[in-house]
């Protein structure tokens, strides 16, 4: 039973470029959330997708966008990259219908470096 998988594991981009990160949820999960984790900080919520729609959004600019596909996998897109976007980007999956007991299962993230 595969857990949450993310690709690529590492990425180096130049300021102003665009990047796409990918996530496959744990088998049986239908909800995907994305988090940004800067060095030494806790993960910060970016947004959550369920039924191919953005359901919740954190305090991130519109440069951050996402998509969820019919197979529940998801993409995170970041446009016009800034140096401050350098971080570990984490994807987490869960089961929306599991009620109040639906802990998040995280992937090991994509390390993005913007130069």
């Amino acid at each position, binding site marked *: 039973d595969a857990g949450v998988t993310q690709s690529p594991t590492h990425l180096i981009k130049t300021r102003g470029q665009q990047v796409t990160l990918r996530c496959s949820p744990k088998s049986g999960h239908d909800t995907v959330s994305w988090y940004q984790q800067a060095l030494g900080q806790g993960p910060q919520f970016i947004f959550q997708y369920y039924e191919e729609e953005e359901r919740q959004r954190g305090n991130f600019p519109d440069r951050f966008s996402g998509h969820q596909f019919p197979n529940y996998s998801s993409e995170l897109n970041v446009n016009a990259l800034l140096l401050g976007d350098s971080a570990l980007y984490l*994807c987490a999956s869960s089961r929306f219908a599991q009620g109040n007991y639906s802990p998040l299962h995280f*992937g090991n993230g994509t390390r993005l470096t913007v130069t």
Partner: protein
Amino acid sequence: LAKTTQPISMDSYEGQEVNITCSHNNIATNDYITWYQQFPSQGPRFIIQGYKTKVTNEVASLFIPADRKSSTLSLPRVSLSDTAVYYCLVGDHGPGAGSYQLTFGKGTKLSVIP
């Protein structure tokens, strides 16, 4: 969203029991308390979740007093491999909940000493 407060760091010797307390004074009625563990360059890993009283699983116990304004994660007989950052989160995970945003603080960095 309920905010949490945890100690920034803790040290413990191998074999000791470690208790990490988290304060969440404005916890809401529907909120659950969840603890995650994170190793460097890895995603957080779910440890335990509870609503009230005591919950125990194979790796930890979670103690929640009646007022639910705090919780304590207890790790029995820690080993070097328990060195990690531990996050306490409070939120309503339910479907249709007003907000599913789980707010991570900076967590507690636990260092286990040989």
